[in-house]
Every structure is written in C-alpha cells, then in structure tokens.
C-alpha cells in the first residue's frame, strides 16, 4: 500500500517533503525487535508495575492521548490550590509543606502560561495552571475556545473543531508534557512511560484568562528528579513550555520484601513482591509473577483483582485501596504515613518499619468477590441483586415486606431503596436515579434516562451506580469470548 500524500506530490510534480516508508520494511524491523525481546532469558514474565486500572467509574488516561474532556465550569468563582481541588476530604497537612506556588511562566505575543501551584508525589504531578491572554484578539480567541478548537483541526478534523467550539471544552490535544524523558532504561528501550494526563477546567480567574487543574501520571514511580517536567499548551507551542519542579516531595514508605505473595486474590496468582512504595497520595507496586496468566486473563477482566492491598493504621483502622479512592495508583485522600503501622498486600502483612512479614488476618469480606450482575438485553444498564451483594460484603441488610423497602448499611453509609421508585435515600438524603450516557452534559450525545429500584421474582435489584456510596469498585466480568459474563467483580 503506497502513501497517499506521496502519490499526490508525485501527481503534482512536487518534491518530497520526506521519504516514503515501506510498511513491509517497518514490519520486518518491528518483528526483529520483538524476536530479540523473546530471545532474552525468560526471567519469569516481565515484572509488573502498577497498572492503570480500567474502571467504569473512573476516567483512565493513557500516554498523552486520553485527556479528560470534562469542561464543567462551576458557577461560583473561586481560586483554589492543588490540595483543595485534588484532595477535598480529610486532613492534607502532611503534604502542605510540599506544595509549590508562584512557579514558572512562559509567554509569546498572545498568551502567558503560568503554573499557579503544584504537588509532586514521586509518580504524579497535581497542578493548577492558567493561560492569560495578552491582547484583545487573543482574549476573544481564548474565551470563545476558538484557539483551542483550531489547534485540534489537523489531528482530529473538522468535527472535533466544531464540537469544541460548541461545547467550550478542552480537547485531547491541548496539554502536553515531556513524558518521554522519564523512563527506566533498565526496563524499557521505548522512551515513553505508561502515563497519562487529565485536565478539568476551573472557573475563569477573570475575563481574559482560563485555568485548569492538571493531573499528570507517570505510570511508575520516578522519585526525586533534578530535571523539571516541561509542560506546555498546544496552541502556544513547545517553545513556551514551563518547568514543573520534581525535586521536592514527601518521603515515602518503601518496602522491598522480595517475598512470595498473592498478587491477585481473585484468581490466586502468585508472584514475588519486589517493591511497594506508599506515598501520601499514591502507591506503586512491582511484582514478578511466578507464572504467566492464562490467555483469557485480560479479556475476562480478571486482572482487575490485582494489587489488592490494605493499610493497617496505628489506631487499628483498616483502610482498603478503594477507601483511599485508588481506582488507579492515585488516592483521593491524603494518607498520614506516620500513622501507617503496616501494609497488607494480598494475604501477607508487611510492617512499615521493615520488620519481618507475617500472614494477614483480615475478614474474607474485604477481599474481591463475585456477585450476580444483571444486564438488560441490548443495553448497558447494569444492575445488581441487593441482598446477595450485602450478604457477600458483610453489610447490614433489612427488608420490610410491608413497604417493600430495603435498608442496607456499610462503611457508615445507609442506603434505603424502595421497589418501584426512581430514587433512593443515602443517609436520609434523596438521590435521583439517572442513567447518563456522557459525563459531559454539554456533549451533543448526552442523554439521561430514569432508572428504578425493582422487585422481580422476589429479588430487589438496583443500578450499580448506587454502590459508589460504599467506595466499592465493581467490574463487569467478561467471558473468554469477550461477552458480558453476568457477574461482576466487587472490590471492597
């Protein structure tokens, strides 16, 4: 297959801007490189780093591609720093000394890019950035979203441009950083880490500026770095990159047990835990599997049971990964590392002070389990049987036959669900049941449908979104043929 643009240049008798490559040559080159990979000593399977978890309740970014497009602007104008935005609940005092403010700026004749505040935890950068227009035309282009929309034309085409103009959203090509400089040479010869970047627009600081909270994930633990991260916006270009320092962060808890563990309690797969790094806001795990998973492991989403860990705090509290908000490797709350007594990974407990490990003694209800998942044919409306889930979770469950109402309590949250209603109560507060087809209400494909608590054949069922109040992750398991299996993997 020949290159279309080269055919055009040839037809128009233009000189080539660049040579035409032969896909067969590329295929041979790639194949040779992969063959060389396979010739390396089989030191078990490749060591696993903490993967980016897929979840129907989290938006997972990958490389620089999967940028969040949520562009919701709050009605109330306010200025917040990184801690208030990324960790709105709990005590953040542990990391306050590491928040940096009034950082680098870069400008061209039209715009100024500024990093207002940032926090680095060794593998993620949390930042607030502002772009300020420096003249009237630039302000018009910025505030109308024209400058962002036009910067997407070449890569994404006319449809994307129109959509961004209409919605005012920040598109996937707006923000960039130099991921490629941060990788472990011993583990990869591909100069790119498995990272991602997300953005969410904040209220406009004034009538000629826009601000965003930016979340940059390296995908693996990098630690302190002398070289700052370069960050830029597409429409200003890389020459207007700003520096985000990576040389200041809270000291993590770092364990290197080199012991056999169960890295996936759902499947029982075992490996050698090489390293567990716990920062106040994230975690990183390196495990060498002892056997290669079977070929359906990823297709069925059984891999979502990996990296099941808990923190035992000095006051006796057990915190699960989901209670920390860690659908991927980031928390949504700040952990006081000085209060961590031990880290439980799989079924093994590792004291934070490095003393010898021992078998963990946790209730089985804290580990991943399967529950029936009901999928209405031809739709993506996922539902679950309330009593079955509560039983397996160890939640309190009561059924009132007269009022056809179930009351279920778990982790301090009481849910009250009555058959036939399109709402439920969460700690007494009414929550409407709405199935939304898009996160972004301004998306032209956005639609919302009411959902209901139902009673069928004596079984009360509810939409799975209700489970968000209990800080659970719930994965729709698939069959080996990639069909929905009618079971979900619940991760407490």
């Amino acid at each position, binding site marked *: *297959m*020949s*290159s*279309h*643009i*080269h055919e*055009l240049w040839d*037809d*128009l*008798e*233009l*000189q080539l*801007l*660049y*040579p*035409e*490559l*032969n*896909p067969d*040559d*590329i*295929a041979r*080159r*790639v*194949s040779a*490189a*992969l063959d060389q990979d396979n010739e390396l000593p089989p030191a078990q399977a490749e060591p696993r780093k903490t*993967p*980016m978890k*897929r979840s129907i309740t989290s938006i997972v970014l*990958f*490389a*620089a*591609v*999967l940028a969040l497009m949520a562009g919701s602007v709050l009605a109330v104008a306010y200025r917040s720093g990184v801690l208030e935005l990324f960790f709105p609940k709990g005590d953040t005092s542990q990391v306050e000394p590491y928040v940096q403010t009034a950082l680098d700026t870069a400008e061209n004749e039209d715009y100024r890019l500024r990093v207002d505040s940032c926090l680095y935890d060794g593998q993620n950068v949390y930042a607030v950035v502002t772009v300020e227009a420096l003249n009237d035309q630039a302000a018009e282009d910025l505030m109308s979203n024209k400058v962002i929309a036009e910067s997407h034309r*070449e*890569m*994404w*085409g*006319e449809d994307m441009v129109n959509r961004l103009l209409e919605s005012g959203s920040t598109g*996937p090509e707006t923000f960039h950083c*130099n*991921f*490629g*400089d941060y990788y472990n040479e011993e583990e*990869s010869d*591909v*100069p*790119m880490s*498995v990272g991602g970047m997300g953005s969410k627009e904040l209220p406009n600081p004034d009538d000629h500026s826009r601000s965003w909270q930016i979340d940059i994930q390296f995908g693996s633990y990098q630690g302190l770095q002398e070289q700052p991260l370069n960050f830029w916006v597409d429409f200003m270009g*890389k020459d207007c990159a700003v520096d985000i320092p990576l040389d200041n962060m809270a000291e993590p808890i770092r364990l290197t047990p080199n012991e056999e563990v169960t890295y996936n309690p759902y499947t029982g797969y075992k490996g050698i835990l090489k390293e567990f790094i716990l920062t106040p806001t994230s975690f990183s795990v390196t495990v060498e599997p002892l056997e290669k998973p079977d*070929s359906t492991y*990823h*297709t069925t989403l059984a*891999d979502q049971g990996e990296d099941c860990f808990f923190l035992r705090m000095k006051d006796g509290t057990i915190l699960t990964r989901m209670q920390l908000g860690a659908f991927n490797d980031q928390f949504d709350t700040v952990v006081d590392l000085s209060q961590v007594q031990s880290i439980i990974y799989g079924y093994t407990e590792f004291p934070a002070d490095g003393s010898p490990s021992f078998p963990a003694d946790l209730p089985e209800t804290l580990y991943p389990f399967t529950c029936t998942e009901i999928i209405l044919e031809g739709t993506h409306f996922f539902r679950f049987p309330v009593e079955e889930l509560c039983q397996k979770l160890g939640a309190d469950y009561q059924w009132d036959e007269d009022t056809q109402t179930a009351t279920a309590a778990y982790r301090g949250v009481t849910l009250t669900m009555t058959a036939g209603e399109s709402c439920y109560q969460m700690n007494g507060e009414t929550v409407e049941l709405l199935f939304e087809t898009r996160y972004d209400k301004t998306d032209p494909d956005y639609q919302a449908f009411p959902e209901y608590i139902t009673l069928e054949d004596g079984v009360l069922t509810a939409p799975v979104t209700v489970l968000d109040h209990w800080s659970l992750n719930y994965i729709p398991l698939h069959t080996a043929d*990639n069909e929905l299996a009618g079971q979900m993997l619940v991760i407490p």
Partner: protein
Amino acid sequence: MDEQNLILRLQAGERRALEEIIQGYTHYLTAVAARALGNAPSREDLEEVVSDAFLALWRFRDKLEPGRSLRPFLAVTARNLAYSKLRSRRETEEIPNHLPDNRPGPEEMAEQQALHRHLRQLVEEMEEPDRTLFLCYYFQEQPLHQAADALGLNESTAKTRLARGRQRLKIALSGKGGSYVQSHS
C-alpha cells in the same frame, strides 16, 4: 480495519494483528513523525520513530481499550518519540559541517516548504466535501472507503472528486509557480 477486533487480537498476543496495524498506519505515522522532526527528516530517523511507535503499541497492548481508535495513541506516541529524538540529538551530536549528499540545501528547502505550504492552503480553501476528503485521504492517510463513508460518499464518487481536485490543484500550483514545478521536475 476492524480496530476493536485488532486490539483484542493484539491483547491475545497475535503478532499478525500488529502487522495489519503496521500496514494500515505506517504512512500516517510517517507524516506525523515527519512534521515533528521537521526539516527534511532522514529515512533512518523516520523508520526508527515509526517502528518504535508500533513497538510501544505492542508492549503496552494490555492497557488498550478495545472500544477506542488506535489513531490518537499511535499519533501521540510517534510525536513524543520524535521530540525525544530531537532532544537527544541536540544534547549529544555536533552540528555537521556539511549536509548529507541527498539532502536539499537551505535555499532549496525553503522553496520546497513554501510550495507545500501553498498546497496546504489551496486544500484548506477547497469547498466541502472536497476539502475534508483531501485532508482525510492525503494528509491523514485514511483509507478511501473510510474517508468516503465519513462524508456520506460512495467510493466511486470520492475517487472522482479526488481526481478533479488534483487537476485543479495542478493548475493552481503551476499558475502560482510554474517555474517551481518545471525546474524541479
């Protein structure tokens, strides 16, 4: 290409799926890499960047989501690799005293780039659907059926539009800079 199926096959470890992706995306990634590398990139540089982008796709295939297009991931990967190459070259290589034999000199390069910019401008000024058809087929290297489908055209109509569009471009370019075309042909 049925990309969902390709991704699933990739994730199942099927190298044949990767070869199909290479056949489908090499020319597009070459364009992306060339833009990022700038100034008459060498064949070797382009081959390295494009190959590494496909290797990255293979090595991180488990993290792909079958419902998503491969195009943005491959494009951004190729661009990042190209930038990394540029950065490492600036840091380690001396500027040569002479250019490789087969590369144009600065003046000739400037002339060529001006002509290509003019070509792009002419395409941008085309009326729809020709404009989008040209951008998708030539500059995005999309398969003809895909570009045609997106515009609601059948392939035969799309081919005719491309042919007529090329004719108009030829006339416009020779009218603007007939000497360019003749002296470099």
